[in-house]
């Protein structure tokens, strides 16, 4: 299969690097040829993405920068040198050697180098992430599994005193709102008295990962979280709840609380009370938007183009709560066949009953699908901007790569996220309407002057 225009999903190395970059005090050591890491940050680097716009930004990333000599004679001694010196230069609790395509092709014995470092009591782990082995979603999933296997320790199997849940499945660099969404989900689970191991983002360290085995459960938010959760279950007996998507709005937030409460054997009143609170909270804020939503004809035919976790969440909220007409959902994270049934079921059950659902990452195919459907609004990435322009419809950037949206801790999860989404959605429509009003006015003036 030619993947020639599958241009939104990066490679396994990018997924692994973004995962490591999201854990404080964990220092990646890239064993690859020069430049391999730069694409990992391209999904949100608008300057990098503009053709002729200055290239990719550098990051301060320890790297072996393999040269021809190492390609011919092997790069293990260069890696040994880089590991040793990284420990001297960069502060960290754990160092993770990540291998790209070149060492895999030339057959470097990376494990021997890592073993050697460990024997000298250096805290070094290793992740194999050659770009040709899969996309960034897959790379994230494999790297998270490898971290569970290498970081989580057997002697920490005593459960936390407080009920605790690990969160798996949001993918830095691919899920645009991963950081903010994890924080919202932490706040959501706190409503039923749970503490959260977000594992990624601000304040999350190798120590957080080591303690993952002390949690009472893991919550899996996409197919890409399952390998790590399974590893944790198989090795340390931590059960997991395969929720499967990012809950957007009070209904799905309540659904998640219900599942977690039931799995942990909490009293049903606790979850019900929280659900009631969430519904009331969302209703309070949507009342503020009701005049715009109800009286200004803001009920649109919508296409969503995104990875499965956020595509399902957005679709279910827009359709099932906001009353929008989601007519097309294009799932772009190249999920395996066996995950597709559950994704379709979640979409159908959530209100998008009539939506056409397609699984593809090809920009060419996606453009053709959007041209065919001609929705009134597109929720997608910068890669859909051209076709939106061509169809003369507004676009809201909700997935990567992003070109016009700064996304640091923005979230679309839970009630706060759904409120933010509604604000963004209405703002995009309002700007679009204003833009067209100005266009119509200037066209009118041209005509009047012409007379």
């Amino acid at each position: 299969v030619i993947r020639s225009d599958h241009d939104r999903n990066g490679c396994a190395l990018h997924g692994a690097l973004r995962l490591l970059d999201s854990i404080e005090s964990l220092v990646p050591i890239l064993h690859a040829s020069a430049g391999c890491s730069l694409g990992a940050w391209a999904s949100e680097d608008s300057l990098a993405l503009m053709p002729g716009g200055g290239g990719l930004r550098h990051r301060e990333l320890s790297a072996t920068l393999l040269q021809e000599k190492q390609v011919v004679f092997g790069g293990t001694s260069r890696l040994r040198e880089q590991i040793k010196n990284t420990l001297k230069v960069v502060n960290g609790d754990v160092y993770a050697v990540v291998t790209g395509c070149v060492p895999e092709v030339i057959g470097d014995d990376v494990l021997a180098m890592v073993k050697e470092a460990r024997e000298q009591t250096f805290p070094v782990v290793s992740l194999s992430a050659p770009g040709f082995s899969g996309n960034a979603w897959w790379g994230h999933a494999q790297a998270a599994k490898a971290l569970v296997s290498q970081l989580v320790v057997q002697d920490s199997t005593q459960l936390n005193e407080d009920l605790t849940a690990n969160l798996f499945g949001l993918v830095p660099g691919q899920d645009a709102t991963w950081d903010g969404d994890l924080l919202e989900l932490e706040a959501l689970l706190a409503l039923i008295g749970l503490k959260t191991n977000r594992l990624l983002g601000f304040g999350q360290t190798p120590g957080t990962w080591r303690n993952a085995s002390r949690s009472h459960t893991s919550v899996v938010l996409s197919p890409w979280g399952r390998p790590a959760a399974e590893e944790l279950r198989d090795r340390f007996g931590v059960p997991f709840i395969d929720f499967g998507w990012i809950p957007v709005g009070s209904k799905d937030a309540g659904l998640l609380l219900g599942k977690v409460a039931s799995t942990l054997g909490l009293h049903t009143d606790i979850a019900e009370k929280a659900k009631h609170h969430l519904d009331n909270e969302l209703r309070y804020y949507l009342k503020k938007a009701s005049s715009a939503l109800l009286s200004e004809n803001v009920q649109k035919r919508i296409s969503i183009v995104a990875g499965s976790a956020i595509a399902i969440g957005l679709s279910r909220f827009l359709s099932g709560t906001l009353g929008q007409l989601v007519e097309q959902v294009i799932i772009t994270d190249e999920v395996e066949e066996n995950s597709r049934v559950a994704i379709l079921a979640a979409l159908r059950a959530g209100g998008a009953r009539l939506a056409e659902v397609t699984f593809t990452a090809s920009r060419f195919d996606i453009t053709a699908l959007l041209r065919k459907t001609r929705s009134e609004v597109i929720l997608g990435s910068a890669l859909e901007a051209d076709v939106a322009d061509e169809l003369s419809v507004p676009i809201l950037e909700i997935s990567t790569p992003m070109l016009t949206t700064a996304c640091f801790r923005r979230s679309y999860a839970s009630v706060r996220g759904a409120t933010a989404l509604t604000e963004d959605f209405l703002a995009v429509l309002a700007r679009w309407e204003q833009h067209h009003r100005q266009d119509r006015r200037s066209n009118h003036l041209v005509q009047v002057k012409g007379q």
Partner: protein
Amino acid sequence: MSVIKDRRLPIREKRDGAIIAYAGQLAALHAEAGEGRLVPRIRTFAQDTRSDLQVAAELLSTIRDLAIVVHGPAGCFSSLRVAEHAVVTGLTERDSILGGDKKLRASIHQVIAQHRPGAVAVVCTPVAAINNDDADAVVAELRDEYGLPIVFIRTDAFKSKLSNNGADLVAHALLRETSIARKSAERQPGIVLISTRESEEDIDTLSKLLATIGVTAFTFPRYSRADNWAKVPTVSASLAIDPSDADFVGHALFDEFEIPYVSVGLPIGLRGTSQWLTGLARVLGKTTQAEELVASKQEVLDTIRSNFSRHKGAQIYVSAPPDIAFSLVGLVEELGLGVSGLTLTYVDKRHETALAQLASKRGDLPVLVGEGQAFEEANLLRKVGANLYIGVDCPVSHVLRIGIPVLDLVGLPFYGYAGAERVAEAMLRRLENTALAQFLSEGTESYSDGWLAKSTHWFIKHEVK
């Protein structure tokens, strides 16, 4: 003989004796260059930086009617994600063993069918280079089949340590195409402006500046069009913007087509732009027009200098490709400010004169040579200090962590008079309010105290062949 005739272009390290690692005083670096023995050194600790592949892809993406095929795994495509006419062959592990010729062939067919380009460039990646795929044969065969220029850019990310080798490889491949496309030996009016890294706005500024002295120009290879390549061998002269990159193209055009090559410094800063314009006008016989324009700019410079009077003595650290860096030092000095240190992405034998000029004034100036090696700058900046850091498309968070404000010129047009005024304004704003850098400097440092206390050249060693 012209390099255009050669199928393969030697890397810059071999052509020009380029080096990518040095830390020390300017005088010592100049002494090495002056004796013609710039010493090749390596780093035993390094940080990731761009490769020739990314530079080549970015440059190619500016050519409007060119389709790009990246021959490698999907991730190598990331720098081109939103380029309209680009695809990737998407090599998998299996292809890395069995070869990716079939995928390359299919991708070229696909990109031509989808985009109807004027030409196609195939950019090679490390995996394809190690595979030793016979991409040449595929390219030659499809070139005949379509009657279209299809060029193979021999990037690999590991032969040269200089990312700008990618620009040379693109220029070399396209120069060969201009030679093929050449229809007549007759000279046409107008000149070719050799550009490999400048922004569209900078090109626009320089084109307008040239128009003021009655010169019309078009760019090559950046922002060129495949259907315009035949014009390149017919121009009356070629003109450098940044000689570091343009020299190779200018000399090749002279060797192959006897097109005079004009290189008169860089149009950076008000004085630099005036010298560029008057130098150019002298060569092209248009002195009077240039003199009037230059004279009118003295007042502008006086006004800008007076704006900086309250920052007199402020020290600036400059980090940029060599010729741009030397010119930025000139701009900083004309504003009445000082330079506390310098990072040059590389240095080669052609920079001997510029190093000599600067060393005659500031032999003690601390200099780093290297691209993207933030850890060394973090070490040096703590020792030499700075009120402002000016860089060109480089890492910056290590500078902000020390509390030094940053001006990255990647998004700011900086050529010509207009560019000089913009840079001066941006510098002034950063010097006026340093709150962001101050706030960020109160956080934690990621480099160890041990490293920050060491000599900056600690990890730079002589290369053992």
